[in-house]
């Protein structure tokens, strides 16, 4: 699959006044046309920063390294005008809290209209008709009336639909959804996820879903990257990742999830906490919390390398051995199911 956006060795350092603190340690990630990619990890792992940096949204205190290619364009080298054309145009982004992303003092119609004017050059009645069509498209009934309402008159789920309509205004090739349903109730989350799935399939739009919720990512995506302390530590097809997780952190995350079906069991928690970015341990960042860690792990950070084909990449010194365990467990599990 040819990549529509391709990130290579991206690093981000934040200026702390007297020194720089590295938040992202060389991320490489491709997103194919129409592909749905999930990015999971706990707070502070760099999953949002990756995309904010790629779109030049981090501000002056951040120093961004590496390359972000979209076709022949290098996004990090574009001037502000060029970047503004990409943002909201070819790449759109929606965030967790729709009511703080929308402007509270402007009507919905005006806010969608602004996106249509900037990215499609539509004005007047043409813009209004298109705005109405977009609201219809995202499942808001009574679109003509909604255009004249303010964000506070709509529910959280409705506002997220408005955000999605605005994102669609530029007919993007990539939609980056950063925790799009985290602030919403479960039944509303199901509606929004359905909508995103449908839009991505209909428009051949790539979807990058950033989430802390493994269930949402498992449900929605074809491929998943797991991040920890500013690095991708495991990357694989979604089925493979959840049925045969290899990295001890991924395995820990999955074991830590309570479940709604099956026998009740004590949760397996990962000991300790995520270290702050300016106090990373030597070697593998996960080593101090890892049951499998030995001396070699504190020596060097392992490279992200393939295990067992199928483009399943893991960054762990014990990957080969753990992959064998994962295979065995998956086989046992299948036997139990049968």
């Amino acid at each position, binding site marked *: 699959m040819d990549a529509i956006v391709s990130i290579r060795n991206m690093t981000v350092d934040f200026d702390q006044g007297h020194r720089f603190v590295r938040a992202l340690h060389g991320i490489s990630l491709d997103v194919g046309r129409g592909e749905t990619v999930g990015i999971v990890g706990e707070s502070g792992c760099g999953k949002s920063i990756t995309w904010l940096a790629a779109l030049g949204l981090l501000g002056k205190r951040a120093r961004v390294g590496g390359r972000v290619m979209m076709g022949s364009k290098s996004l990090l080298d574009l001037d502000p005008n060029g970047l503004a054309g990409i943002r909201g145009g070819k790449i759109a982004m929606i965030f967790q809290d729709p009511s703080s992303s929308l402007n509270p003092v402007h009507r919905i119609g005006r806010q969608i209209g602004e996106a249509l004017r900037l990215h499609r050059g539509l004005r007047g009645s043409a813009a209004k008709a298109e705005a109405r069509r977009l609201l219809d498209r995202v499942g808001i009934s009574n679109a003509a009336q909604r255009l004249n309402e303010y964000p506070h008159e709509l529910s959280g789920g409705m506002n997220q639909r408005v955000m999605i309509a605005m994102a669609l205004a530029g007919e993007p090739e990539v939609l980056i959804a950063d925790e799009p349903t985290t602030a919403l109730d479960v039944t509303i989350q199901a509606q929004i996820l359905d909508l995103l799935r449908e839009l991505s399939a209909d428009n051949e739009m790539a979807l990058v879903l950033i989430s802390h919720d493994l269930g949402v990512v498992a449900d929605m995506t074809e491929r998943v990257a797991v991040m920890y302390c500013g690095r991708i530590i495991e990357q694989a097809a979604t089925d493979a990742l959840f049925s045969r997780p290899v990295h001890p952190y991924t395995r820990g995350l999955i074991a*830590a999830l309570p479940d709604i079906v099956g026998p009740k069991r004590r949760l397996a*928690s990962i000991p300790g906490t995520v270290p702050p970015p300016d106090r990373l341990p030597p070697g593998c960042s996960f080593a101090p919390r890892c049951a499998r860690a030995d001396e070699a792990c504190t020596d060097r950070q392992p490279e992200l390398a393939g295990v067992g084909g199928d483009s399943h990449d893991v960054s762990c010194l014990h990957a080969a051995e753990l992959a064998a365990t994962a295979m065995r467990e998956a086989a046992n599990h299948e036997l139990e199911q049968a």
Partner: protein
Amino acid sequence: MSAAETPLLSVTNLKRHYDVRLPGGLFGTPATLKAVDGISFEIMKGKTLGLVGESGCGKSTTAKLVLGHIPVTAGEIRFDGEKVTANHNAQWRALRRRMQMIYQDPLGALDRRLSVADQIGEPIQIHAPETPKAERDERVASLMADVGLRRDMADRFPHELSGGQRQRVVIARALSLKPDLLVGDEPVSALDVSIQAQVLNLLDDLRQSTGFTALFISHDLKVVRQMSDRVAVMYLGRIVESGAPEEVFRRPQHPYTQALVSAIPTIRRSAVANRIVLKGDPPNPVNAPSGCPFHTRCPSAIAQCKSEVPALLETAGHKVACHLVNNAPAGAGIAAE
């Protein structure tokens, strides 16, 4: 449930209504918001009741009512036989020290200017000021050990701790008076997955060692199932289904519970195939629908649902408030598919 067991907390026909004004007219139109509209439940000593539901269903209001933070509109709350009122007098304070609360946001619940040790010792200082300092310090140290905080963290301040550590401080503080009832309002919702598991395990261990009774409120069904002996599902101020978590979540009877359970994304089953996606948003509690509050979104509503409020009746081992289930001949629940 044997006859020997006595409920520590029993709530009967609890209501909490608010007078609000809707836009319209010079000073708006008066209306009633029924945050909690006639719920009853009991929690046996040493057991945990999980209360689930979406935002605005009244689960947090229930917590505040149970603790006597706000007065009830109607109904009765009895804690260990004594009536809980919102008159903040000596009697309430005596009850309140036996009921403690854990909130969702630990940073908001802690005093930023008190060290960890002072936070945990503060309730003892307030409710048992006669306790000598040495004894208090000893109690604080043992509480810190119980919740897994290192000794050297005693002098730290909330902003120096991680989210999980802060929630441990909140839990230690809540346990400092050896409460009989612990009310947790979304106690792990602000925490990351790996930390959430740590805190849930911790609460489970503490419950086994100290034997407290708990009311556990969460929007997350998976977390509630993990923690509770019984669950109650709320929708617009009413309990629509209750019973043992295995029963309620494996064979949900009420159409709302069915949709809720099917909508949870999980990595261990492919849910997309048989997911029930409800149309629309929950109605505004100010003009809640007549009859069954869920009928506006219910895929299988009948005429009766619009006019009559269904009662919470015992069916197949758990209680359901739904005309379709309650009218159906025995053994032919609508969840048969």
